[in-house]
């Protein structure tokens, strides 16, 4: 299956700084793609380029196998970080207008917005002005406006900021449903728990450069440190020089929790065997780095250069 989006050597320069430096990405279809990076890394610039709000200085972008063109506006649904609605406009008119701008006919736009409002059980808001809605209500309307023209690629920039947990859950549900229907979702965020829960693929951008890309599993495998957490009875020291005892802490009575790092790539079984020789093992688990840890390691490492 061809990729939903391929960016090749995308570069954008502003007068005083480079916003994107030779960024290349491949976003597979029907995945939730986490675009990560600290503030000011260039995520929003890349997203704006994909949305054709601004143009790249150089580099190419193709979407579903075609070079990105104005006709693809309707293919993309974009929820910007800086988002809002016309305050004085009624919810129904607003949804119709926004969908028409995406290329839907007035009739289609009207039908689709009604269907979505039924789905979210907010049909009685149709004639309400947006300024009379609560923030959470407005967020729902905003989400509908992003997806109602049935885009194949949905770009969500910090989608959960401003959502209460109930609505965040609802939106998460919708996102998974859209993915199941075949949509590709780009998530731009620095909330690592979201990434951990939802994303299949990630790319990390720091200081205008892409520093990491791959499926979540690949990335985690890459950043495995062969570190294991062991709970055991009685202290121990490791005789074998292939291991390093990073930490040993008392939990309660004679129980301890130790962190052991293996210097060479050993199978966990070998470590367990070696451990049972020196202590009574109660639990054993590989310490897999969280996305947050990887993020921090890479970003901090990058800043040391």
């Amino acid at each position, binding site marked *: 299956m061809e990729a939903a989006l391929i960016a090749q050597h995308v570069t954008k320069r*502003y*007068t005083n700084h480079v916003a994107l430096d030779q960024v290349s990405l491949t976003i597979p279809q029907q995945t939730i793609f986490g675009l990560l990076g600290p503030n000011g890394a260039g995520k929003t610039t890349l997203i*704006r380029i994909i*949305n*054709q*709000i*601004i*143009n790249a*200085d150089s580099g190419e972008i193709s979407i579903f196998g075609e070079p990105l063109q104005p006709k693809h*506006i309707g293919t*993309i649904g*974009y*929820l*910007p970080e*800086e*988002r*809002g*609605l*016309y*305050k*004085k*406009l009624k919810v129904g008119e607003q949804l119709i*207008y*926004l969908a*028409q*701008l*995406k290329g839907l006919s007035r009739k289609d736009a009207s039908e689709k917005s009604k269907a979505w409002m039924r789905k979210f059980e907010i049909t009685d808001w149709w004639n309400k002005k947006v300024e009379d809605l609560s923030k959470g209500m407005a967020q729902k309307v*905003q989400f509908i*406006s992003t997806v109602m023209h049935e885009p194949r690629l949905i770009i969500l920039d910090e989608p959960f900021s401003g959502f209460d947990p109930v609505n965040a859950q609802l939106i998460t549900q919708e996102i998974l449903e859209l993915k199941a229907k075949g949509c590709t979702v780009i998530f731009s965020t620095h909330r690592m728990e979201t990434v951990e829960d939802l994303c299949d693929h990630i790319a990390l951008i720091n200081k205008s450069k892409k520093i990491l890309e791959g499926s979540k599993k690949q990335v985690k495998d890459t950043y495995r440190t062969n570190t294991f957490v062991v709970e055991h009875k009685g202290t121990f020291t490791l005789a074998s020089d292939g291991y390093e005892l990073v930490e040993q802490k008392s939990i309660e009575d004679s129980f301890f929790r130790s962190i052991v790092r293996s210097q060479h790539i050993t199978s966990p079984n070998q470590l367990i065997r070696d451990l049972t020789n020196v202590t009574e093992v109660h639990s054993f688990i590989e310490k897999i780095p969280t996305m947050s840890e990887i993020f921090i390691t890479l970003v901090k490492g990058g800043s040391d250069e």
Partner: protein
Amino acid sequence: MNKIFLIIQREFLNRVQKKSFLIATIVLPLIFPAIMAVLVYFSIQQKKNATRQTIQYVDESGFFVPDTSKFVFKKLVTDVKSAKEAFQTSDDYGLLYIPHFDLSHPNGVTLYTKVNPSPNDIGNLEGMLENQIRELKMRKFNVDQKVLDSLKTDVPIENLNVADAGQEKKSNSNILLGVGIACGILMYMFIFIYGAQIMQGIIEEKTSKVVEVIVSSVRPFQLMMGKIIGLASVGLLQFLIWIVLITTLSSVVLAYFGVQMPQQQMMQEMAQNNPNVQAPPIAVLEMMSQIPFGYVIFNFLFYFLGGYLLYGALFAAVGSAVDSPAEAQQFMFPITIPLLISYFGLFTFIMNDPHSTVSVCLSIIPFTSPIAMMGRIAFGVPGWQLALSMVSLILGFMLTTWVAGRIYRVGILMHGTKINYKVMAKWFMMKG
């Protein structure tokens, strides 16, 4: 193109459906005829009162011949003192006392009134006395009565305008001036009101942060132009409704009071006796009909659109750069200056001489031409000047739209940046 139309439509509906639009569009044209009606009503009342006013007079000199066209004169054959006492209790307007006087130094004529008389009334009486004293003097120099009569001449100056085709048109510079100034002021108001609305709309889009959602569907330039054109169509609609309402209502008001105007009939009779002297109200109507209203309205629409597009783009640029109307104030200054210059130019240079060099320059420079040309248009503007002015206005708004578009596309996506002209210049230079 389809999307620009959607934006125009949206902007148009947003404004037209507002109550404030309805009120401004319906009430304002009612105010003009209402003011006219009040003025006409009072002037009629005054005329009626004026005919009733009676002036008693005591003439000790013995030469005063009352001319009764303005006042009713009542001759008293008493001394001043008792006349004054009697006047206190009477309903009459005034008591005129003419003592014995030396013809070369006619002093001591006094008008006693209970209220302060208008300068008009005093002037009337003075003129009356001066004429009579002049005749008296002439007679003293043995000038024959026939000669005296033949000295009386009435010279009505008729202003003829030599038009291109060699036809002579009657013109009245006061009416033309009035039309010019009214058009100029209207233009100034329209540009300011609608320009400010463009700016306000853009600031609203920016602060409500809907703008990034929109520009992911349309090009920023389309959004800006859609807004500007949408508001222009609101302005045109409002203007057309005003024209229709004002002309209908005004003619209704004029027609209603017209039949009751007593002096009009009087003037008509006068006019029949002397065809050279036309009654002012009829003359006014005739002059009004001489003004090529179609031509004036066409030009008004052209300069309204041109001026509005030119300034609208600048207002849009300012709106896109700032985060709040308060912040916009500092950038309004350079936009306001040329508007104010043309506004004052209208009242100084163009009012004095619509064909002077300064007037011509003001009406050709695109930043001042919309207002200045409207001030001149009714006087007749040479074709080459009109063409030059129109072309430079079109070039002018193309330039400002281009400049504004470049600032706008960057500005609308910027939040919380400190803005000055240097930053705006940087945005302008920025690549797409």
